[in-house]
Protein backbone atom coordinates (compact mmCIF):
# COMPACT_ATOMS: atom_id res chain seq x y z
CA UNK A 1 0.00 0.00 0.00
CA UNK A 2 1.44 3.38 -0.94
CA UNK A 3 0.52 6.78 0.50
CA UNK A 4 -1.45 7.92 -2.54
CA UNK A 5 -3.72 4.88 -2.21
CA UNK A 6 -4.00 5.49 1.50
CA UNK A 7 -5.13 9.09 1.09
CA UNK A 8 -7.50 8.13 -1.75
CA UNK A 9 -9.43 5.88 0.68
CA UNK A 10 -10.67 3.85 -2.27
CA UNK A 11 -12.69 6.80 -3.57
CA UNK A 12 -14.09 7.84 -0.15
CA UNK A 13 -11.33 10.38 0.61
CA UNK A 14 -13.70 13.36 0.76
CA UNK A 15 -16.03 11.66 3.24
CA UNK A 16 -13.40 10.08 5.47
CA UNK A 17 -11.00 13.05 5.63
CA UNK A 18 -13.92 15.47 5.75
CA UNK A 19 -15.12 13.78 8.95
CA UNK A 20 -11.73 13.60 10.67
CA UNK A 21 -10.70 17.02 9.38
CA UNK A 22 -13.77 18.71 10.82
CA UNK A 23 -13.34 16.88 14.15
CA UNK A 24 -9.70 18.00 14.37
CA UNK A 25 -10.61 21.56 13.35
CA UNK A 26 -13.38 21.86 15.96
CA UNK A 27 -11.24 20.35 18.74
CA UNK A 28 -8.42 22.80 17.93
CA UNK A 29 -10.83 25.76 17.99
CA UNK A 30 -12.22 24.58 21.34
CA UNK A 31 -8.73 24.23 22.84
CA UNK A 32 -7.75 27.71 21.63
CA UNK A 33 -11.01 29.20 22.99
CA UNK A 34 -10.75 27.70 26.50
CA UNK A 35 -7.13 28.83 26.80
CA UNK A 36 -8.04 32.30 25.53
CA UNK A 37 -10.94 32.42 28.01
CA UNK A 38 -8.58 31.65 30.90
CA UNK A 39 -6.17 34.36 29.78
CA UNK A 40 -8.95 36.95 29.49
CA UNK A 41 -10.46 35.97 32.87
CA UNK A 42 -7.10 36.37 34.62
CA UNK A 43 -6.51 39.72 32.89
CA UNK A 44 -9.91 40.96 34.08
CA UNK A 45 -9.15 39.86 37.63
CA UNK A 46 -5.86 41.77 37.59
CA UNK A 47 -7.61 44.85 36.18
CA UNK A 48 -10.24 44.63 38.93
CA UNK A 49 -7.52 44.34 41.55
CA UNK A 50 -5.60 47.32 40.12
CA UNK A 51 -8.79 49.40 40.03
CA UNK A 52 -9.51 48.43 43.65
CA UNK A 53 -6.01 49.39 44.81
CA UNK A 54 -6.10 52.84 43.22
CA UNK A 55 -9.28 53.84 45.07
Amino acid at each position, binding site marked *: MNWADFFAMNGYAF*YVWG*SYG*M*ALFVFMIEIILVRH*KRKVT*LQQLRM*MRDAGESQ
Partner: protein
Amino acid sequence: MTIHWFKYAAPTTFYGLAGKLIPFFAWPSAILFVAGIYFGFFVAPTDAVQSEAYRIMFIHVPVSILSMFIYLIMAGYAALGLIFKTRLSSMMASALAPTGAIFAFIALWSGALWGKPMWGAWWVWDARLTSELILLFLYLGFIALQASIDDPRRADRAGALLAIVGSVNVPIIYFSVKWWNTLHQGSTIKFSDTSMHVAMKQALFLMMAACWLYTIAITLVRVRSIILERERNTQWVSELEEVRS
Protein backbone atom coordinates in the same frame (compact mmCIF):
# COMPACT_ATOMS: atom_id res chain seq x y z
CA MET B 1 -14.87 36.28 57.91
CA THR B 2 -14.35 32.60 58.74
CA ILE B 3 -17.85 31.84 57.50
CA HIS B 4 -16.82 32.92 54.01
CA TRP B 5 -14.02 30.40 53.97
CA PHE B 6 -16.43 27.56 54.68
CA LYS B 7 -18.91 28.88 52.17
CA TYR B 8 -16.38 28.86 49.35
CA ALA B 9 -14.52 25.77 50.46
CA ALA B 10 -15.65 23.55 47.59
CA PRO B 11 -14.75 25.79 44.63
CA THR B 12 -11.54 26.90 46.39
CA THR B 13 -10.11 23.43 46.81
CA PHE B 14 -11.50 22.20 43.50
CA TYR B 15 -9.84 25.04 41.60
CA GLY B 16 -6.38 23.96 42.70
CA LEU B 17 -7.09 20.25 42.33
CA ALA B 18 -8.49 20.69 38.81
CA GLY B 19 -5.40 22.64 37.80
CA LYS B 20 -3.14 19.81 38.94
CA LEU B 21 -5.26 17.14 37.22
CA ILE B 22 -5.52 18.72 33.74
CA PRO B 23 -2.19 17.44 32.32
CA PHE B 24 -2.96 13.90 33.53
CA PHE B 25 -6.05 13.87 31.31
CA ALA B 26 -4.85 16.04 28.41
CA TRP B 27 -1.63 14.20 27.52
CA PRO B 28 -3.03 10.64 27.73
CA SER B 29 -5.94 11.88 25.61
CA ALA B 30 -3.56 13.09 22.88
CA ILE B 31 -1.62 9.81 22.98
CA LEU B 32 -4.82 7.74 22.80
CA PHE B 33 -6.08 9.79 19.83
CA VAL B 34 -2.85 9.04 17.95
CA ALA B 35 -3.05 5.33 18.90
CA GLY B 36 -6.74 5.21 17.93
CA ILE B 37 -6.05 6.77 14.53
CA TYR B 38 -3.17 4.33 14.01
CA PHE B 39 -5.34 1.31 14.84
CA GLY B 40 -8.29 2.69 12.89
CA PHE B 41 -6.37 3.39 9.69
CA PHE B 42 -3.38 1.04 9.66
CA VAL B 43 -4.36 -2.02 11.70
CA ALA B 44 -8.12 -2.41 11.18
CA PRO B 45 -8.81 -4.14 7.83
CA THR B 46 -10.93 -2.77 4.99
CA ASP B 47 -14.64 -3.50 5.47
CA ALA B 48 -16.15 -6.03 3.06
CA VAL B 49 -19.36 -4.03 2.54
CA GLN B 50 -18.44 -0.37 3.07
CA SER B 51 -14.81 -0.47 1.88
CA GLU B 52 -12.78 2.40 3.41
CA ALA B 53 -15.81 4.59 4.15
CA TYR B 54 -16.54 2.62 7.31
CA ARG B 55 -13.45 4.20 8.93
CA ILE B 56 -15.65 7.25 9.66
CA MET B 57 -17.06 4.99 12.40
CA PHE B 58 -13.98 5.49 14.62
CA ILE B 59 -14.80 9.17 15.07
CA HIS B 60 -18.58 9.03 14.52
CA VAL B 61 -19.44 6.38 17.14
CA PRO B 62 -17.35 7.75 20.08
CA VAL B 63 -18.50 11.36 19.65
CA SER B 64 -22.14 10.25 19.22
CA ILE B 65 -22.10 8.13 22.39
CA LEU B 66 -20.26 10.86 24.30
CA SER B 67 -22.72 13.53 23.14
CA MET B 68 -25.47 11.53 24.89
CA PHE B 69 -23.42 10.68 27.99
CA ILE B 70 -22.22 14.26 28.46
CA TYR B 71 -25.82 15.45 28.31
CA LEU B 72 -26.84 13.07 31.12
CA ILE B 73 -23.82 14.08 33.23
CA MET B 74 -24.59 17.75 32.57
CA ALA B 75 -28.25 17.29 33.53
CA GLY B 76 -27.15 15.36 36.64
CA TYR B 77 -24.82 18.16 37.76
CA ALA B 78 -27.49 20.76 36.98
CA ALA B 79 -30.04 18.78 39.05
CA LEU B 80 -27.59 18.54 41.98
CA GLY B 81 -27.06 22.28 41.80
CA LEU B 82 -30.80 22.88 41.69
CA ILE B 83 -31.66 20.59 44.62
CA PHE B 84 -28.69 21.04 46.98
CA LYS B 85 -27.65 24.55 45.88
CA THR B 86 -24.09 23.28 45.43
CA ARG B 87 -22.58 25.96 43.24
CA LEU B 88 -19.74 23.86 41.90
CA SER B 89 -22.25 21.39 40.40
CA SER B 90 -23.93 24.18 38.45
CA MET B 91 -20.55 25.42 37.25
CA MET B 92 -19.68 21.89 36.07
CA ALA B 93 -22.95 21.74 34.12
CA SER B 94 -22.09 25.04 32.41
CA ALA B 95 -18.56 23.82 31.68
CA LEU B 96 -19.77 20.57 30.08
CA ALA B 97 -22.35 22.09 27.72
CA PRO B 98 -20.04 23.50 24.99
CA THR B 99 -18.09 20.23 24.69
CA GLY B 100 -21.35 18.27 24.50
CA ALA B 101 -22.58 20.58 21.76
CA ILE B 102 -19.31 20.13 19.86
CA PHE B 103 -19.58 16.34 20.07
CA ALA B 104 -23.20 16.42 18.89
CA PHE B 105 -22.12 18.63 15.99
CA ILE B 106 -19.28 16.29 14.97
CA ALA B 107 -21.68 13.34 15.27
CA LEU B 108 -24.10 15.00 12.84
CA TRP B 109 -21.34 16.20 10.51
CA SER B 110 -19.54 12.85 10.27
CA GLY B 111 -22.94 11.15 10.02
CA ALA B 112 -23.84 13.29 7.01
CA LEU B 113 -20.49 12.50 5.37
CA TRP B 114 -21.07 8.81 6.06
CA GLY B 115 -24.71 8.89 4.97
CA LYS B 116 -24.02 10.42 1.56
CA PRO B 117 -21.90 7.56 0.13
CA MET B 118 -23.83 4.78 1.94
CA TRP B 119 -27.46 5.94 1.75
CA GLY B 120 -27.17 8.47 -1.07
CA ALA B 121 -28.34 11.35 1.15
CA TRP B 122 -26.57 13.84 3.42
CA TRP B 123 -29.60 14.02 5.65
CA VAL B 124 -32.91 12.24 6.15
CA TRP B 125 -35.59 13.15 8.68
CA ASP B 126 -35.21 9.82 10.39
CA ALA B 127 -35.74 9.21 14.12
CA ARG B 128 -32.04 8.74 15.00
CA LEU B 129 -30.83 11.76 13.08
CA THR B 130 -33.67 14.05 14.12
CA SER B 131 -33.35 13.23 17.83
CA GLU B 132 -29.58 13.82 17.67
CA LEU B 133 -30.25 17.20 16.02
CA ILE B 134 -32.64 18.00 18.88
CA LEU B 135 -29.82 17.09 21.29
CA LEU B 136 -27.58 19.70 19.62
CA PHE B 137 -30.39 22.27 19.93
CA LEU B 138 -30.85 21.38 23.62
CA TYR B 139 -27.15 22.03 24.26
CA LEU B 140 -27.30 25.32 22.35
CA GLY B 141 -30.53 26.25 24.14
CA PHE B 142 -28.93 25.55 27.52
CA ILE B 143 -25.90 27.72 26.65
CA ALA B 144 -28.03 30.54 25.22
CA LEU B 145 -30.48 30.50 28.14
CA GLN B 146 -27.68 30.72 30.71
CA ALA B 147 -25.96 33.48 28.74
CA SER B 148 -29.17 35.52 28.57
CA ILE B 149 -29.66 35.70 32.37
CA ASP B 150 -27.35 38.08 34.22
CA ASP B 151 -27.77 36.68 37.74
CA PRO B 152 -25.67 33.46 37.81
CA ARG B 153 -27.91 31.72 40.36
CA ARG B 154 -31.04 32.39 38.35
CA ALA B 155 -29.21 31.32 35.18
CA ASP B 156 -28.25 28.06 36.93
CA ARG B 157 -31.84 27.36 37.95
CA ALA B 158 -33.33 28.10 34.52
CA GLY B 159 -30.61 26.10 32.77
CA ALA B 160 -31.08 23.18 35.17
CA LEU B 161 -34.80 22.95 34.40
CA LEU B 162 -34.11 22.94 30.66
CA ALA B 163 -31.36 20.33 31.05
CA ILE B 164 -33.55 18.04 33.20
CA VAL B 165 -36.59 18.25 30.94
CA GLY B 166 -34.40 17.78 27.86
CA SER B 167 -32.81 14.60 29.23
CA VAL B 168 -35.92 12.69 28.12
CA ASN B 169 -34.45 13.03 24.61
CA VAL B 170 -31.40 10.89 25.39
CA PRO B 171 -33.22 7.52 25.69
CA ILE B 172 -35.19 8.49 22.58
CA ILE B 173 -31.92 8.83 20.64
CA TYR B 174 -30.53 5.61 22.08
CA PHE B 175 -33.59 3.44 21.44
CA SER B 176 -34.66 5.16 18.20
CA VAL B 177 -33.00 2.46 16.11
CA LYS B 178 -35.08 -0.19 17.91
CA TRP B 179 -38.39 1.63 18.26
CA TRP B 180 -38.77 2.88 14.72
CA ASN B 181 -37.92 1.65 11.26
CA THR B 182 -34.92 3.75 10.48
CA LEU B 183 -32.26 4.05 7.84
CA HIS B 184 -29.64 4.27 10.57
CA GLN B 185 -27.98 0.98 11.46
CA GLY B 186 -28.29 -0.55 14.94
CA SER B 187 -25.90 -0.07 17.84
CA THR B 188 -22.27 -0.59 16.89
CA ILE B 189 -21.16 -1.68 20.34
CA LYS B 190 -23.02 -4.66 21.74
CA PHE B 191 -21.86 -6.61 24.75
CA SER B 192 -22.46 -9.99 23.09
CA ASP B 193 -21.25 -8.87 19.67
CA THR B 194 -18.63 -10.96 17.94
CA SER B 195 -19.23 -9.76 14.38
CA MET B 196 -16.71 -6.92 14.46
CA HIS B 197 -13.04 -7.49 13.74
CA VAL B 198 -10.93 -7.28 16.90
CA ALA B 199 -8.75 -4.45 15.53
CA MET B 200 -11.89 -2.43 14.79
CA LYS B 201 -13.00 -2.87 18.39
CA GLN B 202 -9.58 -1.86 19.67
CA ALA B 203 -9.59 1.28 17.50
CA LEU B 204 -13.09 2.17 18.70
CA PHE B 205 -12.10 1.60 22.32
CA LEU B 206 -8.99 3.79 21.98
CA MET B 207 -10.92 6.61 20.31
CA MET B 208 -13.66 6.35 22.94
CA ALA B 209 -11.13 6.57 25.79
CA ALA B 210 -9.40 9.50 24.06
CA CYS B 211 -12.72 11.36 23.77
CA TRP B 212 -13.52 10.76 27.45
CA LEU B 213 -10.15 12.08 28.60
CA TYR B 214 -10.42 15.03 26.20
CA THR B 215 -13.84 15.89 27.66
CA ILE B 216 -12.54 15.75 31.24
CA ALA B 217 -9.45 17.87 30.46
CA ILE B 218 -11.28 20.57 28.50
CA THR B 219 -14.11 20.70 31.08
CA LEU B 220 -11.63 21.18 33.93
CA VAL B 221 -9.94 24.06 32.09
CA ARG B 222 -13.32 25.65 31.39
CA VAL B 223 -14.70 25.19 34.92
CA ARG B 224 -11.61 26.88 36.37
CA SER B 225 -12.38 30.04 34.37
CA ILE B 226 -16.03 29.84 35.48
CA ILE B 227 -14.96 29.49 39.13
CA LEU B 228 -12.67 32.54 38.84
CA GLU B 229 -15.41 34.59 37.19
CA ARG B 230 -18.08 33.75 39.75
CA GLU B 231 -15.81 33.99 42.79
CA ARG B 232 -14.00 37.12 41.59
CA ASN B 233 -14.97 39.15 44.67
CA THR B 234 -13.59 36.63 47.14
CA GLN B 235 -10.34 36.85 49.04
CA TRP B 236 -8.98 33.50 47.91
CA VAL B 237 -9.18 34.48 44.23
CA SER B 238 -7.34 37.75 44.84
CA GLU B 239 -4.64 35.80 46.70
CA LEU B 240 -4.02 33.34 43.87
CA GLU B 241 -0.50 33.29 42.42
CA GLU B 242 -1.77 33.75 38.84
CA VAL B 243 -3.89 36.77 39.85
CA ARG B 244 -1.26 38.51 42.01
CA SER B 245 1.57 38.27 39.47
